C-alpha cells in the first residue's frame, strides 16, 4: 500500500505513535517488571510489523492507527490515545478487552496479542520463566 507523499508520512507517523503509546501502556515501568524499554518492544514491534507479508503489514499498521485516532470516538471525553496518561491507556485497553462491544474488544485483543507476542519473545523476558531460546539445548525429561 502506497499513499501520496504527505498522507503516507502522516500515516507512518500516526500508526507508530499508536504503537509506541501501546507499548508504554502495556509494559509500563513497574517494580520487578521488565518494561517496554528493557524488552526493546518499540523497535522490535516496528521490525515485526514491517517484516510481515504485504497483505498483513498494512492491516497491523491500520490497527495501531485506528487505536490512535479513533480513541476519542471509541472512548469519548479525552484526546487521542497517545496523549492520554499511561494509566488511562492501560485501563482503556483492559476495559475494551473485558467489554461486550465487539469492535473495541477485537481491537483491544489484537493490540495486546501483537505486543505480547513481541514482548514474550525477548530473551530477557523468557529468562524470567526459564523458556529456552534458539540454540539452548532442550530435552523433555533431562
Amino acid at each position, binding site marked *: 500500500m502506497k499513499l501520496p507523499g504527505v498522507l503516507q508520512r502522516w500515516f507512518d507517523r500516526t500508526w507508530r505513535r499508536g504503537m509506541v503509546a501501546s507499548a508504554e501502556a502495556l509494559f509500563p515501568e513497574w517494580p520487578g517488571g521488565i518494561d517496554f524499554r528493557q524488552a526493546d518492544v518499540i523497535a522490535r514491534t516496528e521490525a515485526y510489523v514491517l517484516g510481515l507479508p504485504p497483505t498483513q503489514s498494512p492491516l497491523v499498521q491500520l490497527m495501531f492507527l485506528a487505536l490512535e485516532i479513533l480513541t476519542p470516538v471509541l472512548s469519548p471525553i479525552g484526546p487521542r490515545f497517545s496523549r492520554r496518561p499511561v494509566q488511562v491507556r492501560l485501563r482503556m485497553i483492559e476495559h475494551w478487552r473485558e467489554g461486550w462491544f465487539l469492535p473495541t474488544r477485537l481491537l483491544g485483543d489484537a493490540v495486546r496479542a501483537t505486543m505480547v507476542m513481541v514482548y514474550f519473545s525477548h530473551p530477557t523476558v523468557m529468562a524470567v520463566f*526459564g523458556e529456552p531460546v534458539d540454540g539452548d539445548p532442550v530435552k523433555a525429561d533431562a
Partner: protein
Amino acid sequence: MTPTFDEVKGGYALDADVVVVGSGAGGAVAAANFAKAGLRTVLIEAGPPVTPDEMTRDGKTFLSKYYWEGGLRMLVGSGAYPTMSGRCLGGSTVVNSAITFRLPDWVRKEWIEDSGLSHLEGPALDAAYDRMFEAVSAAPTPLDVMGRKNEVCRDVLDAAGVPNKPLPRAVKGCIGAGDCLTGCRQGAKQSVDRSILPQAAADGAQIMPWSHAERILFEDGRAVGVEGRVVRTEGRVQTGRFTVRAPKVVVAAGALHTPVLLQRSGVTLRGRVGGTFAAHVAGLALGVMPEPVQPWRGATQGWGGFSPHVRGLKFEALWGPTALMAAEWGGVGPSLYRMMPDIEHAAMVVLVYRARTKGSVRAKRNGMPDPRLWIPAPEVAVVTREAHRLTEAFLKVGARYVFTGVKGLPDRIERIDQAQGLLSPHLRGRHLTMTANHVFCSCPMGPDPDRSVVGLDGRVHGVPGVWIADASVFPSPSAVNPQMTVMAMADMISRQAADLPLV
C-alpha cells in the same frame, strides 16, 4: 533436487504430464504417486523450502516467514478466530503437531451412507492408510519425551473421566523439544517434505518452490496447465512468472486456497466451489499447577483422549512457544508482570470438536481467501460445557487457578463456582477463544454433480483435466486430526488418476 531461489527467480516454462499445485499433505502424496507411475510430474509450491537449521523458536519471526499471511489470517463469522496454515514446502505438515489418526468408523460410515462416498467401504481406504502410516513412521509418543505438561493432561483427563493415552504421532527420534508449531529443529517430525517428497524427487518429480499458482489454463474447455508468479519469501515480491503446461492439473493448495484458485480460474460450479467450508471448533483450559511444569518441555501434543460424553470431541495437551500461547492469557501492565512467574507452572488441555458449523470461502481481490465460519449457539454450549468439565478436573488435580479464554469469565478461576458462567445459555461464538487449524469441506466430494464439487475419483465435475486432492474434498469434518485422512484420500485419488493399483 529442489532448485534454489536464484534458479527459479526469473521465471520458467515447463511441460509435463501432470502439474500438482501445493506440496502439503495432499499434494506431496499425489506428486509422489504420479512420479512413481512414470508420469512427468511438476509440483509447484508457493512457499520456500525450510530446513531445520533455518527454523527458529521465535514464533513471530517463524510465522511471518512460513505461515500464510504471517499467521494472522482470521476466520470471521460468529467471532474472529485465527486460522493458520503452513506456507512452505510440505505445507501445514511442517508446522503441525504430527498427530496421526484414521477416520473413526462412525464418520467413515456417515461419509459412505450420507455423503455417498461408496468407494470408502472396501479395502482401498485401509490400504491407503497403511501406506501413509508407514511412510510417516506413525507411533504412540514414547513416555520418556512426554515432559510434565503431558502428564498433567493425563491426570486432568483421568479426573474428568475421559479415557486417555499417549497420542500417535508422525515422528522419528522426537526428543520432546515442544517446538512443533515452529517446525522441528531436531528434524524429527516426519512432515511430508521429509517423508514423501524425497522419494517423489528420486522418481523424477520436479519440485518448484516459491511458485504461487494464480490461474488454471484452459483450452477448448479442458485444463492444459497453470500459470502464476515466482515470489520471494521476504516481502512476497514477485520476481518472475511461470507456466507449466500439462493435461492433468491436480489442485492441492489446502481447503482455503484451492477454492480460491478455482474461483479465480472461472470454475465456480454455480457457487458450490467454496460455497461450503468447515473447521473443527476448539476450546481450552489452562491450569496453573503448584509444581513447575515447564510446558515448553515435552512433545508438543503427546497425550490425549476422546470424550465419552460427546461424540466427535477430543482432548489434547498443547504448548508451543509462550509468545504464541500467551496471546490471550494474562492481563496487561502490572497484572501481566504478576502472571509471569505462573508461566513455568502452566499446563494446557485443548478440546477439538466436530461441531455442526456453516461456512464459505471466497477469493478476496488480492487473491487471498476470505473464509467465514458460523458456530450455532447449541454447539458453543457443548464447547463451554466441556471447558467447564476440564476446569473442574484441573481444580481437582490441584491447579491453583484455571484460565479458559471464554469472554466474560474470570481470568483466574480458583473455585468451581466461579466457572458457572461456562454453563450459561447466553454464550455465543464471539465469546470463544480458539484457533481453527483443522479446515476442510470447501470443495466436497460426492456422486451428485449438483451437490458436490468433485466426484469419487477426485475429478472436478464437468471440468475436464482438473482434480482436487487435499482437505477441501472432505464431505464433512473428520472428527480427528485430519492429516492422515488427507494423505489417504490424496493417495486414492492420485492412484486412480495415475492407473496405480489401489490395493
